[in-house]
């Protein structure tokens, strides 16, 4: 179980979702991924993508410019 970070700053949706998806493909069950974004659209899109693909959003932090979404990867259903 390891922790990973993905820099998706200055990318516009759906690119942060695509990068998150592609990164998660390389991670293991139980790993966590922190995605750092600037597009506010990611606040709805990344959790939606996680819900339909069975991953859980552990935390969302909204800063002045940056958003950090922490995801726990679940490969159980795959």
């Amino acid at each position, binding site marked *: 179980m390891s922790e990973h970070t993905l820099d998706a700053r*200055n990318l*516009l*949706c*759906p*690119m942060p*979702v*695509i990068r998150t*998806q592609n990164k998660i493909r390389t991670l293991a069950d139980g790993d966590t991924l922190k995605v750092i974004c*600037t*597009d*506010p*659209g990611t*606040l*709805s*899109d990344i959790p*939606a*993508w996680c*819900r*339909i*693909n069975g991953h859980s959003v552990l935390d969302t932090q909204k800063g002045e410019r940056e958003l950090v979404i922490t995801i726990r990867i679940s490969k159980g259903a795959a």
Partner: protein
Amino acid sequence: MTSPRKAVALISGGLDSMLAAQVILEQGVHVEGINFFTGFCVEGHTHAIRKHEGAKPKRNNALWVAEQLGIKLHIVDVVEEYKDVVLNPKHGYGAHLNPCLDCKGFMVGQAHRWMEENGFDFIITGEVLGQRPMSQRRDTFPIIARESGAGDRLLRPLCAQLLPPTLPEREGWVDRERLLKFSGRSRKPQMALAAQFKISEYAQPAGGCCFLTDPNYTRKLQDLWRTGAGKHYELDDIMLLKVGRHLRPRPHFKLIIGREEGENNFLEGYRRQFTHLRPASHNGSLALIDGSADADDIRLAARLTARYCQGRDEASVRIEVTEKDGRAYELDVAPFTSEEIPREWHL
């Protein structure tokens, strides 16, 4: 017990592809969705364009549809590969710069590759016979099947009964009797089916699924090809065509001016790549200079920027200019009057 057959469904976010996927789900097939990001999609980054505060967040319809259907969705970045489809469509363009037939062939082709890589059995789309003049015709359907490489593993559940049986039907993976025979431009059968499935909320894309069917957008794209280094583009170019007022006062540069807060926020993200201007003495929008501009050009751009700020009726407006290298200075300029701006400057 044999495991169910697997279908990959092209999901655009609209109603037709949603219904097609549901029809196949009802037959006990395992369905997962695939959605392509070409850069021209109306979906997605329009988030970034909307106003941040107050406005209802705009959802990504493809993700929303997948969630309603309870299926996985794979979003694929095809920005690079898609360029050839837009720049050199073998079958030409539709009413605007929409290469629909090549585009469909390309997307089904990508889905076919994904299907093979992931051990799926067939592909489904929401196409309806006779619905779109260019790509959804009896004579173009076989072209899509052939050029994509999908052949008869391409199933169109909404009009399958009007077409020759495909492999999934012949093999009994799906029951042809429970597929449909929608044709023509009427949306009534789709709406009735949606009601039957208790789908009450769905996106209704007007002309098409992308900006290439939008005349205002494609006029700006034509301008880009005419005035740039020829017919090509980068992702940033086509994203910027979606926002702001575009004015080309000189062949070698154009000005992109935000029209409201959401667009200004969007343009802010790009400002470091461009010489940019903003009113210093009045409230107003950010403007980017796309192209090369000398001192006279920058003064002209400043007068245009002043025209679209709250000081437009003043004798003089102070504009802050920041060059690409970060050098900043201010100019006092007289705003253009609307009569002084030739109509052909507006793209």
